[in-house]
């Protein structure tokens, strides 16, 4: 039965995760929520990497890439949380819609 599971299936799961993440990022006003969306997106990508490492000549490289992504996601989460903390100190909220300093 597992032999029926093809690359497409994995990619569909990845795409689903990715889309969930994106939807999460666009809909949440809470900074932490957005962070979670980001994690979803990254993990969607990770699934793709793993799948490619299994089904294509990419080999171990895909798994190593995903390891890097995991590490990077951790680092990114730490930085993002620090930003959120700072944001909260400035705005007494973590509603990202209230921070529009990047406006041109």
């Amino acid at each position: 039965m597992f032999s029926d599971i093809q690359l497409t299936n994995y990619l569909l799961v990845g795409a689903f995760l990715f889309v969930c993440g994106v939807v999460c990022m666009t809909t949440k006003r809470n900074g932490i929520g957005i962070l979670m969306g980001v994690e979803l997106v990254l993990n969607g990508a990770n699934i793709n990497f793993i799948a490619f490492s299994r089904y294509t000549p990419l080999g171990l490289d895909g798994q190593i890439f995903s390891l890097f992504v995991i590490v990077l996601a951790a680092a990114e989460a730490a930085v993002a949380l620090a930003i959120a903390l700072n944001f909260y100190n400035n705005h007494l909220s973590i509603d990202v819609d209230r921070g529009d300093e990047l406006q041109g």
Partner: protein
Amino acid sequence: MSSETLTIEEFQEIGKALRFLLMVAWLLPLAGFAVEIFAGYWGHRRSKMASFLAVGCIFIGFACSLGALIHWGTLTRWGHKTVAESQHHEGKSEGEGQTGILDAGKLPVEFVALADKPTAHKDADNDDHHTTSGGGHKDAHHEGEHHDDHHGPGTPAFSGGFYLLGSFGDIEIGLDYYIDSLTLIMFTMVTLIATCIHIFAIGYMSDELVEDYVDHHAHTSDGKHVHRPGRFYRFFAFMSLFCFSMLGLVLAGNIFQVFVFWELVGICSYLLIGFYTERKSASTAANKAFIMNRVGDFGFLIGLMVIVTYLGTFRFADHEVNGAAQPGLFTMIRGADGHIDLDQTVDVETGNDVNVVLLKGVDGETLTNANGKNRTIPYWLLIVAGLGVFGGCVGKSAQFPLQTWLPDAMEGPTPVSALVHSATMVAAGVYLAGRFFPMFTTEVLLTIAYIGCITLFVAATIAVVATDIKRVLAYSTISQLGYMMLAIGIGGWGAGLFHLVTHAFFKSLMFLASGSVIIGCHHEQEMPRMGGLWRKMPITAFTMLVGVIAISGLAIPGISIFGEKIAFSGYHSKDEIVATALAFMQMNEQHFLLFLVPLITAGITAFYMFRLWFYTFAGEPRDAELHSHVHETPWVMTTPLIILAVFAAGCAIGGTHGPLWLGLLNSEPIGLATGLTGQLSGIATPSHDAVHAVHSTAGMYALIVAATGAFVAYLLYGAGVIDPGDIKQQFVSLHTFLVEKWRFDELYDAMFVRPVHIVASWCVGVDRYVFDGLIHRTARTTIDVSRWDRKFDEGIIDGLVNLVGNAVFSAGRSLRVVQTGSLRQYIMFIAVGVLVLFVLLFAVFPS
């Protein structure tokens, strides 16, 4: 031919001695000048030192010249000795000549190459190897040559070089000397007259011996007389410089050197005419003299150019150049008996149909050019050369049409007029015409004769009405110079130069006498205010009378003492000219005017000269006031008068048998004695025999005419039988015309002076309006172009750049609204963007 001969060594010894003596006489005045010109600074203004120096220099010069003349005369038996036979051959003479010099070992080394050697072109009577193509006439004359009839060939001229100014291949231009009897006589004459005049000038110029000289003829703008320091020393400095230049001119051994000193005497004349620099009239006259001389020199230059182009040398005498013998000008042109060797075959290259073959030596050998053909000069160019050089003579000797400067030159102090403008410098033109005679073709000679003829008549007519005592003499000088030119032009070479010498004496005498009158009358020059002066100034009056008789050519006919006619110098020389003219007329009848005009003018001459004398010295005083102050001049002025009077009376003693005439004839160009015939013009000059044959007839005519002239003058001005005023009334327009000097000055002013100024202002106009205008317009155009350029830059190029910038800026600005700063929106964009990319990907590459 003389049986006596000189060896080459003897000849060279004489040459060296003469060269030394004449060099001393020539260079001493220059040394004098160099010292005197600074006399105003080392001495005081009242010192006569400068004049003593000048007199000393010129007197030593006279002594040397006289010594040279006597030395030459005794050693060559007055030019009768020829040089030993062996020297006639070109090659040999050179070799020996050089050894002789080297043995003598006295000359500096650089002179050895240019050493004295006989110019053998005169000693030609013993060979007759000529082959001529066109000169058939000569044989007839050659046969009839009589050696006892004339006195050449004699001792050849001594020639050599001092130093070279430059040498370019075979063309050598340098300072040479050429000494023959003519040179020696001129030297003696010039230095003698100059000495007398220098002494006279000590008296004449003595009013300059002050710290504060008042010039009554020059006024400042407030009407006062000009005060200036006396310039006694400067006068003598200039006189010394003049003597140097004049003697250099006479000594010159090539035509270029003649030109050099020609200009130098010109500048001395300029300085002396303009001596009273404060007077506008004086400086203008000086300018006029120099510039008119330059007009003549322009012709001279053309002559020089032709000569250097075709003959390649300026030297009169044969010479050695780059180790080869180079014939002198005279040798090249004239063959053994004075003929010109013509080649009438048409030269295909140049198209000249008549060429003169240039000769290498007297034996008729021709010069060959690089192609081995005979060297020739087109005949017409020889005429051009002759006319050109004669142009210089016309300017210097104040001949028609360049005669107008000489009367104005009387602005100078009277001693200057005596020395420069009567005796020496103006006669230099005649001297040159004589010296250069072998180069003149018969066509040129005829021109010379006619120019002389016109001049002598025009000047004499003006002299008749002139009232300024010096101007009468000036016109008389021009007229007499015309006689000399006429004489040379009709082949009377000896007669012309004879008259030159006699004229120098009596004219300088008359000028000095007039100077004495001017001093005696306190600077009054107008004859109408004089009269009766002889009582107050007897010495001046009688010495002047000697001059007047001499110039008029009066003699006492029929009586002779010791076989000599009782006559003053002018009689002999003018007689000779008239005789030559008569003989010439007999041979060339169409040119009868060349006899008639001088004959008639002889009468006019006598008339105006006696008019001058009677007007000034005889009769009753016309201005009592002036007369009462008149006094005889001091001895320093009268002594020179007496000395000159002696020479004026006696220098031509013996006439055509006297020493002066015979001395001059020693240098007579070869062939003249037997007469020359122009091969193309057909004009023949009379031989000595022909002249001699008519001598007594001509003398009688001349005497009658002169006596008539003198008698008329006596009637009008001496005895007062006829009132000259009446005659003047009768011919008032003619009189005015003559008083206005035939209106030459006005003519020249309209013809030359004004046009020159107009052209000059045109040139300036062209520069200012055409060239500078062009440049300014270019500059303005450039500025305009730059302006356009600026506009283009600022408007279009810069505009374009700004437009791009602005567009980008506004595009950015419009995109700004998208930049909300809202994070979620950004993510939305990313998501949508990715989606779009996917869609596009699949739309474009639908795998």
